[in-house]
C-alpha cells in the first residue's frame, strides 16, 4: 500500500531507507536528500538525514548510498 510516496517494501539495488527507524521504500529515484524528503512530503526543516552513518546536508547526492536514515525533528523538548 502506498502512502505519502512510500510503501513498506524496498527494491534490490536501492539504498535501505529508514524513516524514524522503520524500513521504507520510495516511489521514484531521488537523486539527493532534498529530493528524497520531497517524495516523502517531509519538510527539510523538520528532518535530519544520515547517509551511510553520517548526517548530510539537503543537497547531498544519494547515488551509491547504502543506508539512508531519516530522523524527523519533533516539536518541543
Amino acid at each position: 500500500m502506498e502512502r505519502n510516496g512510500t510503501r513498506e517494501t524496498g527494491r534490490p539495488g536501492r539504498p535501505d531507507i529508514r524513516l524514524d527507524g522503520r524500513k521504507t521504500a520510495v516511489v521514484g529515484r531521488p537523486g539527493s536528500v532534498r529530493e528524497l524528503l520531497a517524495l516523502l512530503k517531509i519538510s527539510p526543516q523538520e528532518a535530519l538525514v544520515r547517509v551511510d552513518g553520517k548526517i548530510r546536508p539537503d543537497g547531498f547526492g544519494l547515488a551509491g548510498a547504502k543506508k539512508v536514515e531519516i530522523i524527523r525533528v519533533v516539536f518541543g523538548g
Partner: protein
Amino acid sequence: MGQSASFSCSRCSEPACIGAGETARCERHFREEFAHEVRRAVREFSMIKPRERVAVALSGGKDSVVLLHQLAELRQKLPMELLAILVDEGIAGYRPPTIAVARKACKKLGVPLHIVTFKSETGKSLDSILRRRGKGGARRAKGAPSTGACTYCGVFRRLLLNKSARRLGADKLALGHNLDDAAQTLLLNVYRNETDRLARFWPVSREEKEGETPAAPRSGRRAETPDFIPRIRPLIRIPEREVALLAELEGYGIRHQSCPYANEAMRQTVRAQLNEMEDRYPGTKRRIFNAWMEMGKNEKSTAARDASHALQTCKTCREPSSQDECVACRMKREIAGKK
C-alpha cells in the same frame, strides 16, 4: 552523482553536515558556531552574570539537553553553578525514557538533577487529571482531541519550575526555547490578538538592573518580585533543526518522540507555515525574531508594557501571578472538584 565541493565545509575541506556553498559546515565548525551563537545571546541579553546559580529546566528532550550541554561548556569561560530541574508530569510511556536521558546527560556533565512531580503539587499525575476530566489519557485514540492537556501542563510546569528554582537558590531559570519556538510564539500571538502575551515575550524575563545594557530594554518583561526567578533563553537564536543536529552529533540518545498530548493544532499549523517560508525564503525565522527584538527596544512601548504587566502575589499560594489568584490555584480547586 558525485559530491561536489559545495558539500564540503566552506571553512575547511571536511565533509559538511549542514548547509550548502558558503553556509556549508563540517561537524567541528558547526559546533563552534553553535556555541558562538549561544555565547552571543547570553552576552547580548545579559542572561548570566559570573558565579550565578543557574537552574536548567531539563526534560530530557533535544532542546533542554543541548541547553544543558552548552551551559556546561560555557562554564569554562563564564563561571556559573549549574543544576537541573526535571518536572515529571506523570505521562505513562512518554516521560520515563526522557528521564533516563536526562539522568545520563547530568551524570556526563557533572550537573546535579532534581526531579519534581505533578503528583507532589496537585496530588495527581497529568494522566489521572485528564482521565478524570474525560479528555483522554495517554493511551487515547490517535487524533482524538486533548483540549486542556497543554494548558494544565504549562501552568503546573511553570509553577513547579519557579518554586523549585527558588527553593534551590537559583538566580536564573534557563529554558530551552529555540528560534523556531520564538518565531512561532510571536506569530501565534499576532494571529490570536494576544497582545499581553506578545508584549511579555523576550529572551530574558526581566532585567536585573535598569538600563544595564542597550540590547535589553529598561523594562523587566515582568515587574520584579522576589519570588519570581528570572527566566533566560540562551538557545533563542538557534533554529530547531540545528538544535536537533547538535543533539544527534553529541550522542545523547535523544528519543525523537512527540508528547502523546501534543495537539496544539494552531501551533502545528504555524510551524508548518514557517518551515515552508524558511524553505522558500531562508532566514525568515531569524528576520521575524530580529524584527521583534528591534521593536522591543522601543522605550515607549516598553514603558506601556511595564504598566500593564506588573506581577502580583497570589492571594492563595503567595506565588508570583499576573492576577489576584494564580491560574494554578484555580486549577487545583477544579481538579479537586471544589468551586
